[in-house]
């Protein structure tokens, strides 16, 4: 049952990415290219998602626990550390080079091409590298 709920969440997420056009790197890069022919689509996607989820979270958190789990698992850290900032900076460079962040890159699997496969393989390698870096500290 948990897996079915997670599948439905993933399906909704994938539908949202496809309908919004975030599975098109040109749309994403068009938004990031503020000096060019600016494409505001991504702002509407993120805005729509954040506002919807802001309201949704407040409604959900009125309950004492999730439907199928003992508790809500939320990040608790509040500090701004070097790892958060440097990680976000590196991610932004990769995002700006490719127009892919992890969700759209994975959701684009049905249009798999050699460059997209390279992106996905390198991204997974990057996750392993990050884990090794974290384990070093």
């Amino acid at each position, binding site marked *: 049952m948990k897996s079915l*709920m997670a599948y439905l969440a993933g399906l909704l997420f994938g539908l949202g990415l496809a309908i919004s056009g975030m599975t098109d790197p040109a749309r994403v890069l068009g938004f*990031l290219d503020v*000096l060019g022919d600016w494409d505001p689509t991504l702002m509407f996607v993120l805005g729509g998602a954040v506002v919807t989820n802001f309201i949704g979270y407040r409604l959900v958190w009125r309950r004492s626990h999730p439907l199928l789990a003992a508790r*809500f698992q939320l990040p608790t850290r509040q500090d701004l550390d070097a790892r958060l900032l440097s990680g976000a900076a590196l991610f932004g460079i990769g995002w700006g080079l490719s127009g892919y962040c*992890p969700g759209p890159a994975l959701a684009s699997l049905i249009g798999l091409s050699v*460059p997209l496969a390279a992106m996905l393989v390198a991204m997974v390698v990057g996750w392993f590298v990050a884990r090794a870096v974290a384990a070093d500290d």
Partner: protein
Amino acid sequence: MESSLVHGLVGGVLIGLSATWLMATLGRVAGISGIIGTLLTERPRGDSAWRLAFALGLVSGPLLVVLLGGELGNVAGRAGAVVGEPAGGVALMLVAGLLVGVGTGIGSGCTSGHGVCGLARLSMRSLTATLVFLLTAILTVMVVRHPWGGGA
């Protein structure tokens, strides 16, 4: 409103509903790099099945849009298309992919975890991360597309 923006807004609302749904049912944050990165690098016992199911759903969303047909997608300049072309070749994607993986790994999140979920939680860490990756992404595109300043 321009059609692309309507698509963006509708898709964005669906993404928000997905994040709310995952919180309502499993109590988890819908961060792609966290859900799938943890699945692949750690395969946590008893905490992996839902991650795999989410990933399968994520991939089948665009597939469903293709099967439904019509012009539900929003690929720039190609009505009817659902998935756009990569912006570069293998070498560029290897570099970009590595940066995205390492960056989201050590920065604890991506556009979904920090953006969609963190902003909705009013998290200062996520707001800061989102501003930082937006800034470096915009600067990167500036350097790639307009290396001599605003003239191009």
